[in-house]
């Protein structure tokens, strides 16, 4: 709270107006519409709508394909979190050692952040495209009948690889910043007490890094939930047989061309609840970090 301020009411209202206008028109209004629509069922021609209370939700929770999309999202987020956090942590620990060229390594590892998820998807699709992909050929020579266009597991592996690849740089930068904020004196003290590098990592460094790791975990989950839409759409279209249909992708598919707008809206509302939950968790963490 500032003590010294300017007088006036019209000017500040004018200054804040554009932001509020855009927020109201493109955030609150559609969000309310989503909630309202989730209580409605429209007939196939869009001529009559009926208020049906929670029928869309009930229908959703009886629908096996909704549970499928939840499972896909859970597997997808877990795999991406493990793979990209693990690799990023390993790289950050190595780059944190005061070795020559650490700055260069950092630059060479951070640029994939700038690659669009959909483009990352195309890069990996090309390498693993069953008929012409270079790495697909390698797999075939090894005797694996690789085909992400037909095999659901293969498709999932492909989107996980593409999504993790893009996320490594982000996780790496935050882990590195976290590592560099740990006082070197603590590590030296542990070394004087006779702890070797491995023991120092697990008893000193890792616990001090856990707030960063937790923060990144939440960010990675949010990333898989929302930002991987482009990867899924470019690489698999949610297929084969819905094997890579994430919850967001299902919202998109179900409401497409005015299909099931009520069901799609109900899914949107559930997703909103999930985002609010995840954001709340993140804020709790940030409060804690301030005390550190």
């Amino acid at each position, binding site marked *: 709270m500032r003590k010294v301020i300017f007088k006036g009411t019209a000017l*500040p209202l004018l200054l804040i107006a554009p*932001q509020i206008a855009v927020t109201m028109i493109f955030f609150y209004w559609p969000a309310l519409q989503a909630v309202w629509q989730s209580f409605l069922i429209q007939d196939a021609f869009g001529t009559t709508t009926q208020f049906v209370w929670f029928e869309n939700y009930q229908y959703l929770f009886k629908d096996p394909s909704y549970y499928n999309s939840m499972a896909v999202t859970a597997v997808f987020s877990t795999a991406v979190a493990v793979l990209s956090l693990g*690799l990023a942590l390993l790289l950050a620990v190595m780059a944190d050692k005061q070795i020559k060229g650490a700055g260069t390594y950092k630059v*060479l590892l951070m640029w994939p952040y700038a*690659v669009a998820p959909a483009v990352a998807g195309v890069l990996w699709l090309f390498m693993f495209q069953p008929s012409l992909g270079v790495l697909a050929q390698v797999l075939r020579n090894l005797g694996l009948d690789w085909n992400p266009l037909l095999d659901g597991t293969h498709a999932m592996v492909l989107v996980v690889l593409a999504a993790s690849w893009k996320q490594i740089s982000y996780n790496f930068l935050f882990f590195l910043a976290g590592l560099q904020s740990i006082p070197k004196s603590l590590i030296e003290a542990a070394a004087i007490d006779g702890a070797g590098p491995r023991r120092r990592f697990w008893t000193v460094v890792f616990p001090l890094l856990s707030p960063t790791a937790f*923060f990144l975990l939440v960010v990675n989950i949010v990333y898989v939930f929302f930002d991987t839409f482009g990867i899924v759409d470019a690489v698999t279209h949610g297929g084969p047989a819905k094997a890579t249909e994430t919850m967001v992708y299902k919202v998109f598919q179900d409401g497409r061309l005015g299909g099931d707008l009520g069901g799609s809206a109900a899914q949107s509302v559930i997703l909103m609840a999930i*985002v609010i939950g995840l954001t709340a968790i993140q804020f709790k963490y940030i409060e804690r970090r301030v005390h550190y």
Partner: protein
Amino acid sequence: MVENRPLSTLIAHAILWMGIAIVVFPVYLTFVASTHEPAEIVNGTMGFLPGGLPLQNYVDALFTGTKQIKSTPVLQMMGNSLVMALVIAIGKIAISIISAYAVVFFRFPFRMFFFWTIFVTLMLPVEVRIYPTYKIVSDLGMLNTYAGLTIPLIASATATLLFRQFFLTIPDELVEAAKIDGAGPMKFFRDVVLPLSRTNMAALFVILFIYGWNQYLWPLLVTTDASMDTIVYGIRRMIVTSDAQTDWHIVMATTMLAMLPPVFVVFAMQKLFVKGLVETEK
């Protein structure tokens, strides 16, 4: 370093190079493909070295696009992406900095209500309100326009919070001095606040430019006219499942071109990029 162990240093270098190899390989392969004849790519005889067409595929992509599935020339798509990225980045910075200025330097009715109204939107990504937002844009007649592509994405809680945080650190004495000198709020904004915010604006610009350039779902929804395609979404339209119809050589050149501007921004403005990344996550 705590102790000097040549072997562990060597391992560190090796692991970092391995990491870089993982990160670079997919892009390298795409680059290789973008320099080959279409037949070499489709037959799988491409190999791991650049081919004999250093520029041809790029020229074809930029001025013609893919032929089997007719696409918009990539140059036009890049133009659309550039407009989208710039308008989103500059627009977000502009409307956030003035709204943060209002919230911090004034007292007015419903101030905190407005602040929270903006703040809560952190929790509403486009993805959770796909069709209702689409419908509003369509009702406003903004489908297939730059306005439709950019304005709905321009509100930003993150940027507003960042500027608010920064404005709170501007010392009261500075405001006091300006008032004594007879400077009004707009003069203070122009002559003191804006120059002080330069680094923050630049860091934010780097992140928001990348954000705008890389949008996918939004262009997919609001553009149906191929001439409005952005490059990131346009690539997706060039790829067909029955792969005999995909002009992979053009797709690969387009992919390289799609990565070029945002990656260039990261390399050219490393410090600002890292600053922006860390600060927008607070």
